[in-house]
């Protein structure tokens, strides 16, 4: 029997990249439901019926207080147990832009499990720690930045979402709070050691960037990270906005015959992983 991967794209007030994220997964044959968080909390819909949880971009609750904060708390407080089970079952989570902010602020990424002194049960690797180990903060420019960036893709990483990707890809960012700041150097070193830093901003020829190639002033130019299992990925740039070739800002100059853009592989990898492993 061929398994049909099921993807839940989570929505709430202010979510706004759900349609294109759903399109990207469904392109590779997934069944995608766009579900309001109230439907999960009330039990009308259940996380366990899905293989992939996608947190799309947007401005959940208007980014009021801080980006992603309110939805992160809702996940942690209202769906914490379901999420733990979801991850323990070896399933996948993808957070794009606001989704990445939510994962970091809910303590799901980087997911090192350093929850000493929080009063929470000792975390297993890759499970919500209940305490932030990093944050995504206001861009150094103090502005919303909508621009295209080059990303170098880590080659030695447990990340299941980036298998067989080119070493450098081109994606757009659109955010005001994308500056990745780890809590301390121990966490940064652990991320490096475990290959959890999946995407770095770089120049068009792969060199160390400055503004605007690094659009937000992110620590060590970090653009996206995964958890230690490699199954949870969060990134500020939007792979779903370079899903089709004509979304490239100068596609009319390029001689590409491909229909798909450089972000498509991420969604394809997620779907293939479900087919192969779940």
């Amino acid at each position, binding site marked *: 029997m061929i398994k049909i991967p099921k993807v839940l794209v989570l929505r709430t007030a202010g979510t706004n990249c759900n349609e294109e994220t759903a399109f990207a997964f469904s392109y590779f044959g997934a069944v995608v439901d766009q579900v309001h968080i109230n439907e999960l909390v009330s039990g009308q819909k259940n996380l366990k019926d899905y293989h992939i949880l996608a947190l799309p971009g947007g*401005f959940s*609750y208007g*980014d009021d*207080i801080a980006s992603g904060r309110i939805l992160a708390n809702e996940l942690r407080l209202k769906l914490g147990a379901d999420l733990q089970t979801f991850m323990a079952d070896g399933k996948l989570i993808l957070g794009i832009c606001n989704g990445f902010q939510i994962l970091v602020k809910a303590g799901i990424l980087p997911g090192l499990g350093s929850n000493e002194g929080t009063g929470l049960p000792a975390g297993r690797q890759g499970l919500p720690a209940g305490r932030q180990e990093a944050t995504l903060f206001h861009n150094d420019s103090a502005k919303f930045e*909508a621009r295209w960036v080059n990303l170098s893709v880590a080659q030695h990483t447990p990340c299941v979402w980036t298998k067989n990707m080119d070493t450098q890809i081109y994606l757009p960012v659109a955010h005001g709070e994308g500056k990745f700041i780890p809590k301390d150097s121990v966490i940064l070193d652990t991320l490096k050691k475990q290959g959890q830093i999946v995407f770095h901003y770089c120049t068009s020829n792969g060199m160390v960037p400055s503004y605007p190639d690094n659009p937000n002033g992110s620590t060590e130019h970090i653009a996206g990270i995964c958890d230690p299992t490699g199954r949870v990925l969060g990134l500020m740039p939007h792979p779903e906005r370079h899903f089709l070739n004509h979304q490239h800002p100068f596609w009319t100059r390029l001689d590409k015959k491909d229909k798909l853009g450089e972000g498509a592989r991420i969604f394809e990898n997620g779907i293939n992983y479900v087919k192969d492993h779940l």
Partner: protein
Amino acid sequence: MIWRVEIKQKSGLLDSAGQAVLKDIADLGIKTVSKVCVVAVYLLEGNVSREEAKRICEELLVDSIVEEYAFTLSASKQSQDHHIIEIAYNPGVMDPVEASTIKGIRDLGVLGIEAVRTAKQYHLYGVLGEKDIEQITSRVLMNKLIQHAIKSQAQSIPTTLMLAAAPKTKFDVVVVELLKATDKDLIRLSSQGQLYLNLNEMKAIQAHFKKEGRNPTDIELETVAQTWSEHCNHKTFRGIIRYREGKKGKAKIIRSLFKTTIAKVTYDLKKKWCVSVFHDNAGVIAFDKDFHVCFKVETHNHPSALEPFGGANTGLGGVIRDTLGTGLAAKPLANTDVFCFAPPTTPEGDIPTGALHPKRVMKGVVSGVRDYGNKMGIPTVNGAILFDPHFIGNPLVFCGNVGLIPVGKEKKKVQKGDLIVAVGGKTGRDGIHGATFSSGELTSESETVSSGAVQIGNPIEEKKVLDALLKARDKNLYTALTDCGAGGFSSAVGEMGLETGARVDLDKAPLKYQGLNYTEIWISESQERMVLSVSPSKIDELLQLFAVENVEAVVLGEFTGSGRLQLYFQGHQVCDLDMHFLHDGLPKITKEALYLAPTLKADKLFNEKDLTNDLCDALSHFNVASKESVIRVYDHEVQGTSVIKPLVGIHTDGPSDAAVISPRLGFKRGVAISNGINIRFGMIDPLWMAASCIDEAIRQIIAVGGTLDRIALLDNFCWGNPDKEDRLGSLVRCAQGCYQAAKAFGTPFISGKDSLYNEYAHKGKSLAIPGTILISAIGIVEDTSKVVTMDLKKPGNSIYAVGSTFDELGGSIYLANKDQLGQNVPVVRYKTAMKTYQAIEKAVKSGLITSMHDISEGGIAVALAEMAFAGALGVTAMTKDVPYQGKRRREDVILFSESNSRFLVEVDPRREKAFKATLKGVAHAKVGIVEATPELIVYGLKDQVIMNSNIFDLKTIWQAPLK
């Protein structure tokens, strides 16, 4: 009790917000501030314990990685080395983060929370005098219409955050003495009540109530004033005009300017693909077999003059609701925004009392659009910013939205017996008198008198409404809907209930705070509200659906079938108006219009040997200069639909012509969106301004690969006081230009808007804006894989000029830079233009064009430079080869004239023959070659070099002014 929390950034981190404020202070000319730190303040009221307050901070308000907090009893004390200024919202002004913060606190299980207010504290380091602090506070940190600086201990922690509820007294229906009123009384009633009705209109109301045999209530009078306002009724465009051209010209009676110009084009043309024109919130045209697209552009000038952020914010929010309220609701696809400001370099001393500096207006307007558009998840794909000193007291802010609506959902009809359901935001005192306020001139007192008309939007509320609404639409849960815009419930219910009549219980409207009287509830313009008509059999399912999406939905009343508008408050009837009188009782008045062609001086040209400096001046003119700094704060790619973005080329910084989106992901069919606007042409002749703007909007769509016979237009007139005959005269002439050009091109108008009374009374003088028309165009693109962008692609390719250039420097950027206006405004030669567009269209379809740019402000010279630096390639061009039909054969005229209907086109030599064959009968000539070396070299009529510059230098010059 109230907890006061101050949150500051941990030391050692870059305070980017502080740095941004520091820059603004330096821009004011105050250079003694060395550092600014921004501190967030939250006031939390309710039954909240210390433990709970701590938890709220640590788990919700404070990001422990980068921030630290303290509970404080009052605003931080002033210290030796720095000044502290704390800015809070005025009571009654919506605090944008209050609702979600309360939700976040309740999510933590702290249910005792009742109210939240926020403030911002600015710590300024450096030596500052009282006057400096006052300047910084009023010009950088706050707008007194919505905010205040905390001055005392009592203000920093008030005893309560909740607005005092009005004492419960027995309420009385206010009856206005109208039957016995003299003419003088009537005029006084109109002005004191901010009704903005003239004597004739007041007398018509008086006569009606004489027939009814009673005096009106206050709410009845208000309802009539709202419905009859210029804003809602378009009296000028629909009334009678006696028009003369020249003092001795023969008078011509125009029964309805709208019906004889704008609407006439559409009805004359009878395009089958026009699905719904003029009567709905937006115009609708066919897209493909499953969907239609709709388009609407609106202005929000007066509110943006007073509170730029809020004005633009709610302007965009309002036009998005127009899309939502079109047919049975359309999905918003894209925004387009056009602004007119005074130049950012205007000296402070030239700013009239009560007006804000254009730099601040621009910053606020751009932020307002960014905030609403980005948070709604709607890409802002196209726009324009123009600068002219005339906009100093009255900026123009046009916000547009394109929507997608399923075939079959384009019509709506209220059924007798349907329930009236209000959805979305709560009702407060915001925006009282917005509709009537925009129907009068601004004065330096406007900011105090009309501050109720100023508001801030809540895009997330509207996003929730959008999400819920589209679901309800697809389940057929309602029969009709409209948005609450100007006039609030009064206009929405009045409009929907026109044929049936309506009964409304005003106390059922959810309120932001207690104490509103019945009239305030009825005419409030609180944002993010829509009204639906719902069959009683569907009401439960509808309310349930909105509840899941956390959107408030409340039954207010019923569409009755009585033909009357009946309003109740606390069980008492407060209004009983005849719908027929309300909508058709407005007396037609005749307005006088006189058009006098201005007396203009001929241009005075110089004989310069080198025009490189003139090219640089044109590129750095604010109108031409790169708008990248604005474009990059707008999310222009959300929804993933963009095909041609606002910035194109190898470094993604070239200015594209029309925007192209493909609304259905994975499909090839697209929509092109463009705008045409030119103020200086209108100063010479409003007729040719209109025709040129139509040509420009169409030409941009043709330039990206659109199809001429699938282009629809919108008009937006912004004019001065139409009660003055000269203003109205030029308005009539402009409308005539619209008719002439749109008819000739076969491009129907599908919707439009007018904003009149754009005048600014200052020191006894009335400063009018130059009559301005914005033409927005929408075109269907059959195959988005064939679209063309403007950046040069390959060295060795040929560059063609298509369309003749004429001696038409009038109104050009070239003359503007020489402080001249000129006389020879570009005209449009319709037959030639049509031929050109059809030929270009064919060439695009056959894949013969490698890149193309429309020639507009700055003429051939600017277009050539833009194509070159966008492609990072050089050009060599020959002026003498340009198809030219003027008498004065001069390089400056040929290179900088802004004649209409022209393009520069890059063609691969292998396709040149086919290209030339396709353009047979259309003026075209090879004028240059794309070069690998990054130089722009232009030869003059005698083959001498007249322009020579590195293209990257040109780009830097073009990017610098608005960086």
